[in-house]
């Protein structure tokens, strides 16, 4: 009796497997970006990896991407690594005289796993500069040894303000930090919603806590009285939903990444909370809209990044090379790599030389004008607000 049932089950499974394998390809994938709001066109004088094609450098010269590839939040790291690789490939095609190799080191995304690979890159004399490390936690851990080695590194995504407070001379941030984005978002929310109360919900990451503190201070204690805490990888938020229902705020600001923001906004909308949902650059990602199952519609997203619709060339090249649209921080990584490559093309053939080049660099990138203060912070950090319209993220307005 059992044998017959097992046989039947086997047949059904085989059929199901056939059906599934047919379509288990990389399904989904967001619709291509179509620009709607009047975004600034791709700045025509933006430096590109190709440079003037006359680059000369010693064979074996290399730059490195140090960041998560297989560890936690790997997708974020992957987007940065891909953009860096795209820049290097474009540079090598355009500059026969200077073939730069890209060294990839998987930091695993956590402070203690980052030490080993970073040290290996430091010990590799051919590496003159680093694009990375994506997260604030691991950057804090390896910062001292990178600084001691005088190896210049531009982070396209770590926004914790504390990183530039350690007196490191080799650390440069490729985007605005929380101390810029926080007050800008708070000011914008005050003007937009004129709120009595805003719920500030933060996750337990460096990024989330830093940004939430900045926003809470800018909003003032009585407006930001309602504070919520969630954990990374948390998927069930009934407590936070209950807290928000209780406070009945005019707006909700979530400080954290999209992996938690999507289920949170979905459960808020399911529970009937209609207050506008505002998220930072960590939430501004294709996946946020897809994962929120339709509840993300009408959400606002602040980001110290210039709208990408403008530079279609980069977007198409990325889509064509990796089959996916560029994600958050891809453009910043592309710019950072371009700056390092242009330094090498202009003859910086040693770490101190490239460090000095970046320190004195003043040029227009895709995302913004790049010029750094001594402590590694950008002098000019534009902040834009975006809006989720249906299943696309569209530009709303600049607010910096």
């Amino acid at each position, binding site marked *: 009796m059992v044998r017959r049932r097992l046989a039947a089950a086997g047949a059904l499974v085989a059929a199901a497997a056939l*059906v*599934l394998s047919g379509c288990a390809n990389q399904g989904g994938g967001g619709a291509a970006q179509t620009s709607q709001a009047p975004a600034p066109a791709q700045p025509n004088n933006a430096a590109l990896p190709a440079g003037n094609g006359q680059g000369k450098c010693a064979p074996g010269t290399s730059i490195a991407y140090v960041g998560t590839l297989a560890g936690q939040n790997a997708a974020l790291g992957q987007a940065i690594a891909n953009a860096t690789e795209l820049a290097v490939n474009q540079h090598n095609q355009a500059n026969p005289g200077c073939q730069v190799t890209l060294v990839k080191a998987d930091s695993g995304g956590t402070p203690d796993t980052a030490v080993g690979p970073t040290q290996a890159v430091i010990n590799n004399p051919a590496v003159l500069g680093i694009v990375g490390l994506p997260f604030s936690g691991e950057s804090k851990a390896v910062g001292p040894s990178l600084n001691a080695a005088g190896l210049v590194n531009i982070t396209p995504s770590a926004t914790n303000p504390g990183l530039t407070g350690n007196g490191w001379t080799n650390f440069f941030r490729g985007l605005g930090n929380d101390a810029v984005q926080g007050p800008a978002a708070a000011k914008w929310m005050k003007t937009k919603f004129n709120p009595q109360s805003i719920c500030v919900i933060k996750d337990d990451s460096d990024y989330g806590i830093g940004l939430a503190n900045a926003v809470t201070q800018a909003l003032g204690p009585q407006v930001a009285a309602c504070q919520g805490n969630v954990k990374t990888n*948390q998927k069930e938020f*009934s407590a936070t939903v209950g807290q928000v229902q209780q406070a009945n705020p005019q707006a909700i600001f979530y400080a954290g990444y999209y992996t938690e923001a999507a289920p949170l906004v979905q459960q808020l909308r399911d529970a009937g909370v209609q207050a506008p949902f505002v998220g930072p650059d960590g939430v501004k990602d294709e996946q946020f809209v*897809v*994962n929120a199952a339709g509840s993300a519609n009408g959400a606002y997203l602040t980001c110290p990044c210039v709208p990408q619709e403008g530079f279609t060339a980069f977007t198409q090249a990325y889509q064509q090379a990796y089959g996916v649209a560029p994600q958050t921080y891809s453009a910043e990584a592309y710019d950072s790599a371009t700056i390092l490559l242009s330094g090498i093309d202009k003859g910086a053939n040693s770490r101190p030389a490239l460090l000095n080049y970046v320190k004195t660099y003043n040029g227009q990138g895709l995302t913004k004008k790049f010029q750094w203060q001594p402590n590694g912070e950008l002098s000019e950090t534009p902040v834009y607000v975006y809006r989720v319209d249906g299943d696309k993220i569209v530009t709303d307005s600049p607010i910096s």
Partner: protein
Amino acid sequence: MFLDRFWANTINGLSYGSIYALVALGYTLVYGVLQLINFAHSEIFVIGVFGVYFTFLALGFVPGATPNIPIGGIIADLVLAGAVGMILAGVAAVLLERVAYRPLRRRNAPRLAFLITAIGASFVIQQIFRIFRGSNPEGTIRLLQPDPVFRIFGAPVTNLQIIIILASFAMFFAADGFVNRTRLGRGVRAVAQDPATATLMGVNRERVIMITFLLGGLLAGAAALFYLMTIPQGAVFNGGFLLGIKAFAAAVLGGIGNLRGALLGGLILGIVENYGQSLFGGDWRDVVAFVLLVGVLMFRPTGILGESLGKARV
């Protein structure tokens, strides 16, 4: 704050608890029969989740907004997806036993070796999913928009919660009936109590072990469907780990090896977790779960309903 959300938390806890319970049944069955903590069971659950997710894709649903199709169609799709999820998880559980545990049983390996193999197997399954489907959660596919059907003391009870609680209880009674009332079930109980004598009495031990893993896998597949219905963003390679540990805690809470214990333990854990969460805040949810586990074990080590099937390996 806590009191007026009391009923909402209780209902939410029940629906979560029933998911814990179904997964806990898998742990309890395998432990009851083999005295083995099957750490890889959480990955069998993840296989179920991906099974359900791929069926949604195969049925033409695309991640993103919640489609509005007549309720009949949705129920049929859910049942099909659930069935595929259950079968995949069941077959995976049997394969896991055949590949990882059987060689050890043949060699009479010390029980610690089983633990290491279990964690090795969970690494392998997790990494296979990570390599093929990336480390980000899959896009959200939600077929059923939860909307309240009726209210208890003011707390909304959504259609989703009703389906999950009723279906889980049905699954439980089916499993309980199977183990306690069918001939095969008697075989399972016999092998659990005394494997050597059971074999002497003509019970085919290997087949009973296979059935135990199959049953555990089927239930985990069902739990996977309900989990994906509640949390559509749940399809990710490491989605099962913490849930697995909590489901195991629920199994022990109710009395390891005791099917009714697993159900009770799961429901209690789900509800107490929700109370704790609304009392102390979202991030204290897991702490409450483990404090409850350690507390109960300290005073009543055999769990609330006491050991059944086989005795715990002491």
